[in-house]
């Protein structure tokens, strides 16, 4: 019995391509994947583009231009399942730093002829514009987690991925807590697991690239590190404003400091 292979499309919005690359990076699994999925649209891999409808759309990147506002709606219309992949698609990405600044001033500083630039004042996640079936966090996403998403899709199941903190990954592996043992800033306790505690394993505090975990409480962590580790308000805001600046929990906490000032 041969079944029609589900059709996959991979889309790019405002992003660095790193998350799409994670799919190409699945070298050992690509052939197996090809047996079960028909890659119908994937510009980074092939210029052969087949029209929709698609069974699964992986969407990378944030919405940051007026055309993208329309394009994302078209994609939703043509796709049975939409999965947002990576920090850009799930929280606006690094480029969401613009959300905290004056966009006109920024374009004037950066571009020689700002008049040619058509952009939105905010960089926003896909879920702000269309219904998204699943969000895969991370900057970039983990290849193993992506395979779990694809495998679950093929098996008709919901992906099973952790929503707990990076700390759990440290503890499972016996990685020493940098914050308690050295007073170093680490966003691990408010960040979602998935990276395998990559940074703490290499003696660096987590900077939150996997985004807020379930029930993330940046405010509580902020109060502690400011009082006990003498982190300044300005530095705390910088910690929160990197790869996941636009994630609502992180943004709310960083904005609280600006309001206070």
């Amino acid at each position, binding site marked *: 019995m041969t079944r029609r292979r589900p059709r996959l499309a991979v889309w790019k919005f405002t992003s660095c391509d790193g998350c799409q690359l994670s799919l190409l990076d699945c070298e050992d699994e690509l052939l197996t994947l090809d*047996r079960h999925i028909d890659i119908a649209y994937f510009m980074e891999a092939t210029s052969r583009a087949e029209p929709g409808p698609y069974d699964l759309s992986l969407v990378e990147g944030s919405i940051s231009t007026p055309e993208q506002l329309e394009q994302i709606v078209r994609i939703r219309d043509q796709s049975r399942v939409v999965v947002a992949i990576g920090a850009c698609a799930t929280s606006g990405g690094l480029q969401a730093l613009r959300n905290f600044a004056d966009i006109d001033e920024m374009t004037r500083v950066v571009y020689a002829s700002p008049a040619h630039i058509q952009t939105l004042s905010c960089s926003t996640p896909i879920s702000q514009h269309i219904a998204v079936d699943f969000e895969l966090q991370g900057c970039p996403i983990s290849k193993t987690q992506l395979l779990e998403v694809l*495998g679950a899709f*093929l098996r008709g199941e919901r992906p099973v991925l952790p929503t*707990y903190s990076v*700390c759990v990954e440290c*503890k499972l592996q016996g990685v020493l807590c940098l914050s*308690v043992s050295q007073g170093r800033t680490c966003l691990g306790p408010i960040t979602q697991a998935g990276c395998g505690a990559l940074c703490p394993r290499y003696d660096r505090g987590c900077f939150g690239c996997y985004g807020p975990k379930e029930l993330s*409480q940046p405010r*509580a*962590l902020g109060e502690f590190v400011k009082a006990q580790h003498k982190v300044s308000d300005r530095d705390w805001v910088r910690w929160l404003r990197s790869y996941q600046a636009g994630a609502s929990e992180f943004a709310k906490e960083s904005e609280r400091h600006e309001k206070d000032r």
Partner: protein
Amino acid sequence: MSRIWRAELNDLDRLIAQLGREGFEVIGPRVEGQAISYGPIQRVADLPVGWTEEQSAGHYRLRRRNDQSVFGFTVGPQGWRRYLQLPKESLFSADRNHRGQWQVQETPTLAPKRALLGVRSCEWQAIKIQDRVFERPGSVDQPYQRRRESLFAIGVDCVTSAPTCFCTSLGGGPKVGEGVDLALTEVVNSHQHFFLIRAGTPQGEGLLTKLNLGVADAIQIKEGERRIEHTRTQVAGHWKVDVKRLREDLLANWNHRYWEELGNKCLACANCTLVCPTCFCSNTVEEVSLEGDRVERFRQWDSCFTADHGYLHGGQVRPDVKSRYRQWLTHKLATWQDQFGEVGCTGCGRCVVWCPVGIDLRQAVEALAQPEGEL
């Protein structure tokens, strides 16, 4: 009372070597990066000679001592639990053959012969608490039991304490309790450095015989006792609590306003439960191949602070941080008593020290025992 022997530093080396000859992998404390953690030990020099630590809520720093004590510290980031209840353990795997039939293979249990060197009173008590959880008549956890049977435990009495230690308020410490194979008391002063050593099991007795040690004299024994008593007084000052009242106070104050405050402070990061030597929760996770023709089932540490733990039959029973913190605290101190007839806490202080925002369980309990109006 069984006899107390006297051992010198080099006798401790002989003890380690003898355990090695008898096929034990010796695990003990070592300075590893910025903390004293447990790992394989070959000789006394591998132990944290001359080191100690400074501990308080959310704070741990490695420090030099001004003597050459081998065990002049208390407890580090993680206990022995990871050697008995493995953080992640494969249970079985299943493969589907070309005819669509599943073949199931049980994963062999890892249970190497291990000797734990330097088990503190609070930690030994924790191992016994976990024994009652995992070796409960009628629901024995086989892998745990196998590992437990392969264990040789060498306790160390505490002759120093951290401000976060409160073992004495929960019926333990600072002297290691019954049932350890061997127990050491370290005596160090300006002119001497030796260990008092006693056996608690026939196996420990047997090992001591092979070492041919001399018997300790009354003065030496007194030196050891004096240090333990001094530590006991110290620790007793760190917290006093009536276990029975504790249960009543916590359960009677289920809707106390202070839970709200704890819910705002706590990160639900799960560190406290994962460093706790008695917590036993696990989750089963499956790793499925892309094509769904191979699956491996693992058991992995879990915590009541994760979403999965409270997800039952399609709904979340603990949807906020407050309810998760409440689950943790009341289980440890109150409902554990109903479940196992004892408290689930031994006062090791790890949950206090390794909480990244320094939440102190003792303070939480005290606040919850206050009438709401007086907070």
